[in-house]
């Protein structure tokens, strides 16, 4: 089957910043994304877990976008403005999709 190359961007970010990030993505013309809950993890800011979570300040989500390569720079510029000072990870991988016109 015919496949097409694309870029998969995974942004793991504080839950409290989720709507700001997705607003920025939409503003940059990226209307397709998927949001996943993150159960827990550990990093420079220490270990954390999703259980309990009384405070709205804690908790992370992962926002996944798949875009054509030529749209990657606009996406990263918009996302960086939001995530620059915050806890999180941005990573980009190559991927293949079946329906190129959707990205």
């Amino acid at each position: 089957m015919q496949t097409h190359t694309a870029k998969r961007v995974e942004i793991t970010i504080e839950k409290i910043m989720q709507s700001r990030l997705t607003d920025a993505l939409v503003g940059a013309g990226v209307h397709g994304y998927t949001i996943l809950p993150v159960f827990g993890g550990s990093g420079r800011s220490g270990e954390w877990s999703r259980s309990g979570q009384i405070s709205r300040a804690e908790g992370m989500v992962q926002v996944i976008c798949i875009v054509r390569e030529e749209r990657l720079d606009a996406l990263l510029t918009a996302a960086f403005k939001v995530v620059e000072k915050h806890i999180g990870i941005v990573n980009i991988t190559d991927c293949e999709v079946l329906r190129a016109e959707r990205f």
Partner: protein
Amino acid sequence: MADILALAADNLISPIVLCFALGLFAALARSDLSIPEAVAKGLSIYLLFAIGFKGGVSVAAHGVDLTLGLSLIAGIILSALLPIVAFALLRSITQLDRLNAAAVAGHYGSISIVTFVAATSVLESSGIAAEGYMVAVAAAMEAPAILSALWLISRGESGRMDANLWREIMLNGSIVLLVGAFIIGGVTGEEGLKEISSFIVEPFKGVLCLFLLDMGLVAGRGLAKGGKLLGWSSIAFGVLMPPIGAAFGLAAALALGLSLGGTVLMMTLTASASYIAVPAAMRVALPEANPSIYLTLSLGVTFPFNLVLGIPLYLAVASAVSGG
């Protein structure tokens, strides 16, 4: 003094404090006991709805008077003022830099609704009535402290606050639910309460116990990972600031002529520190500040202090001052 110790001893063996202690022990002992996120949210929604509704019913029964408006104004002023007091204390006794001191200070002007709920539970057990509108005062005290904290760090600089953050602070789920339930309770009154009392009155303490078990787990985990970040001076602040805040609350309550129960609740509100609304706002507006410091102080030091010693202390002082 003997009264305070007797009250503290009674409080120590109450189910809510023991449930908190169990959670704290389980977390520090690294047990795998945990309350799922959705359950914790459900418990908190229940408690906010129940306390708001009952507050509204009480206002419906006793009517609205000038003291309600004045109490709201006093709450807003205290919420804005206390971060400045806390900031001065933090800068004088701890090594925290301006940014982290301002972030911590903001938490101590805002309120902990669970501490408030625990205080109402102690008052109910002691048969002491309080003004129902103190729930509305609690809601009004959530946000002004955030503005004070941001003012302390920016001193008029713009850019820390945006329209989204304003909306999130003023319309955060806890405030909407608390105020909404308060209005529903006020509109439906005693009749409304009768219809749902089997849901919001009888199970209340049991749900509070489970929620405090979760609070103990979260506080214990916070202490285990963030405790190393806090020096003795920061821990001293977390224990000293609540009685200082309570003294401001006591002065305001006496000036307003609140009842004994209302005075204890006002003292509890001014003594408590936020761990819901303010940390979220600080993560957005002051991302450079270390959340482990302010969350550990608020949840791991001040919350247990108020729950175990603070509430009986405020009750004893308010009783002594009011001659009750």
